[in-house]
């Protein structure tokens, strides 16, 4: 009896961690389970197991159009935000210039502004210039809120670099451009990749800012939100679960590649 209670005391925090992770994953598991529900359109009550939703993920009207839009916006916004953000991160991380603290402030502000204010203010600007909300305004909105996160992520990576590595390259007669291309950039690359992954997941999952700037165009989160009132088709659960599996696979592959590189 005593050993049991001692075991509990020693492992209390581990037991707690297991409980906390269970809490985090309950809705994920629920979403996954109900992707196999034979529930028809509304998918509220468990009616029986079926694979048909997975075999026919576009079976519900609009769901794949919405997914396509979200993917397109995600890729465009991620590419643009990663390029712009990485440039800023290099300027801040590698150069001394006047207006540096103002730059830092301008990077911090969008992260300290609630999404609803970002979305509403951008829409009101588009309205002034008579630009109709839709695909490109949404891409612009996503780039805008992703840039700061890219800058912060890449900047952290640049700050953690050992300056001696670049000095060594210069000592070996590499010029500035060669040093950047063959030493600095490969070292910062994992940070840029991480930033891109973060930007994509922020863009893909965004609802509030998108809802303001997308007009009648449907994205995946918008589709889910609109169908919530009459029940979400199980196909949405299929897509949510697939994104989860895909992302975990990418992260696992990244870890694997990283480990292999370290060994060799």
């Amino acid at each position, binding site marked *: 009896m005593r050993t049991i209670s001692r075991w509990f005391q020693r492992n209390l925090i581990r037991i707690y961690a297991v409980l906390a992770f269970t809490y985090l994953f309950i809705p994920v598991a629920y979403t996954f389970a109900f992707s196999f529900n034979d529930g028809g359109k509304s998918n509220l009550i468990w009616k029986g197991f079926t694979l048909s939703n997975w075999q026919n993920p576009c079976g519900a009207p609009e769901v794949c159009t919405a997914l396509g839009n979200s993917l397109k916006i995600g890729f465009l916004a991620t590419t643009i935000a990663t390029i712009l953000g990485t440039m800023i991160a290099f300027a801040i991380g590698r150069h001394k210039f006047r207006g540096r603290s103002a730059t830092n402030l301008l990077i911090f502000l969008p992260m300290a502004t609630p999404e*609803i204010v970002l979305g509403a203010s951008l829409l009101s600007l588009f309205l002034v210039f008579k630009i109709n909300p839709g695909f490109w305004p949404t891409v612009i909105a996503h780039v805008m809120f992703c840039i700061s996160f890219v800058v912060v992520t890449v900047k952290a990576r640049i700050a953690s670099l050992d300056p001696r590595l670049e000095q060594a390259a210069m000592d070996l007669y590499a010029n500035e451009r060669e040093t950047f291309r063959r030493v600095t950039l490969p070292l910062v690359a994992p940070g840029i990749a991480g930033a891109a992954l973060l930007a994509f997941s922020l863009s893909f999952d965004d609802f509030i800012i998108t809802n303001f700037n997308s007009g009648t165009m449907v994205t995946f989160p918008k589709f889910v939100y609109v169908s919530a009132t009459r029940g979400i088709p199980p196909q949405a659960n299929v897509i949510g679960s697939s994104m989860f599996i895909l992302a975990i696979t990418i992260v696992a592959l990244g870890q694997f590649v990283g480990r292999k590189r370290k060994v060799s």
Partner: protein
Amino acid sequence: MKKISTPYLLLLPGMGFLFTFFILPILNLAQTSTQTPIAGGDTGQYEQTLRFKNYVDAFVENKEQFGRSFLYAFLATALALAIAYPLAYAIAFKSGKLKNLLLVLVVAPFFTSFLLRTIAWKQILGEQGFVVPTLRSLHLISESTTLTSSAFAVVAGMTYNFLPFMTLPLYASIDRIDPRTLEASGDLYANGFTTFRKVTFPLSLPGVVAGTLLTFIPAAGDYVNAAILGSPQTKMIGNVIDSRFFKIVDYPTASALSFTLMAAILILVTVYIRKAGTEELV
């Protein structure tokens, strides 16, 4: 000459973008917030009359929702801190080889759309889920009590959705603590609680500040949790701004409310960072 211009060339595209699509919209929002309807105009047509009383009207009319937003955001932040701190501590100090895997697991729920997860909670805790009937049959809640459509559900939903934002920065600063400082504290006869209060917690403060900000700011402006898990009695300021914009096309009030929300959050954040004494964030 080249040395001076390089950083500015690198900054120009990104900063130009942020200026055009972040600063200009905010300025325009400020400009819209003092407009009034054009006499005899259609709905949605406004002219600039510098009516600053819009702010007073908007605030007085919606002070309840303002208060609720900050109260819910505060509760969700406090709850998330209480849940995330031991978790971050466990990952940093007690996970051994599993550390990287556990970190991935903290972020992993993000990859399933947060709307799907919030709706999953609604269905799990709803009338047709299994939780409510179980609690009722155990007589833990009365027949008429519901878990969804309540303030409880909204705060719980926000706590859940922002938990990873709290956990990651906490982990980052707890992980940096040298375990020898904790041993030293024990060697000096401090008990577990004193060590935590005098050593661990102060050293993790940057993470506490970053995590609470990353939770509080989005929570105060959130309206999705209130829309899905709440009722008309749990409306937050985000819900008001959203409906002013889309349903009523009352741009000046929506702008005044947005601007007030932003200003209130910025003031709170500045005071908070000063008090906590960490400038590391910015």
